[in-house]
C-alpha cells in the first residue's frame, strides 16, 4: 500500500496564476480531508469529503479556493489567482470507514512568488 499520494510535491506559481493540487487516497478509505500547514497558523482544516460527497468546507476561504472529488480515487484542491499568503504545505489525508484516524500524504509545498 503506497499510502496517500499527493502530486506534485512542490509547486511554484506566480502571483495571480492558478494552482491545482492532486490527492489519491488510500484504496478503500471513505473520507478525504484537506489541511493547510504554515509555521504561523499550524495545521488548518480546509474541507472534507465522505464517500465523495462534500461534508464540511467550513475552513475553505470562500473566494479562490475550491475542492472536488470526482471519483473515489482522487480529489483536487484548486486555488485561483494565487497570492503570496497562499504559500503553505497543503496536506491531504484519508480515513477508513468508521474511523477517526487520518492517514496523511507527504503534502504539496506551494510557493507563490
Amino acid at each position: 500500500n503506497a499510502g496517500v499520494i499527493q502530486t506534485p510535491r512542490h509547486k511554484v506559481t506566480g502571483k495571480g496564476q492558478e494552482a491545482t493540487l492532486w490527492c489519491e487516497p488510500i484504496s478503500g478509505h471513505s473520507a478525504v480531508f484537506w489541511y493547510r500547514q504554515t509555521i504561523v497558523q499550524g495545521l488548518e482544516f480546509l474541507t472534507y469529503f465522505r464517500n465523495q460527497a462534500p461534508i464540511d468546507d467550513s475552513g475553505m476561504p470562500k473566494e479562490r479556493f475550491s475542492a472536488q472529488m470526482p471519483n473515489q480515487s482522487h480529489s483536487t484542491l484548486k486555488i485561483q489567482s494565487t497570492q503570496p499568503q497562499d504559500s503553505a504545505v497543503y496536506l491531504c489525508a484519508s480515513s477508513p470507514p468508521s474511523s477517526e484516524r487520518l492517514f496523511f500524504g507527504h503534502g504539496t509545498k506551494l510557493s507563490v512568488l
Partner: protein
Amino acid sequence: QQQVRQSSQSLTVWEGETAILNCSYENSAFDYFPWYQQFPGEGPALLIAIRSVSDKKEDGRFTIFFNKREKNLSLHIKDSQPGDSATYFCAATLSSGSWQLIFGSGTQLTVMP
C-alpha cells in the same frame, strides 16, 4: 481563540529521559484526542489516541494522561531516543460530529544523545 493549545513550542530532553508534552482544550464536548508525530518533509502520522471515557492510554514508551475535569492532557515519552525528535501535535474532535480534527500548534521535541 485557539480551541486546542500546546503550551510549549519546543522541548529539549536528554536521551533516556521522559519527555512530557502538554495540551489543553476549550470545548468540553470533544471526546477523541489523538497525538500525531511529524518528521520534516513528511505528513503527520498517528502516534497514540485516547477517548474521553479513559484517563490513561499506554502504548509502549508512549502514554497519554487525560484530565477531563481540567480539560487537559499530556503525552509522556519514556526513555526518549534521538529518533523521537519530531514535532508532536495534539488534536481533538467530537466523534459524533463532522470528525474535523482540530490541531494544536505543535511542540518540537529534540532528544539530545
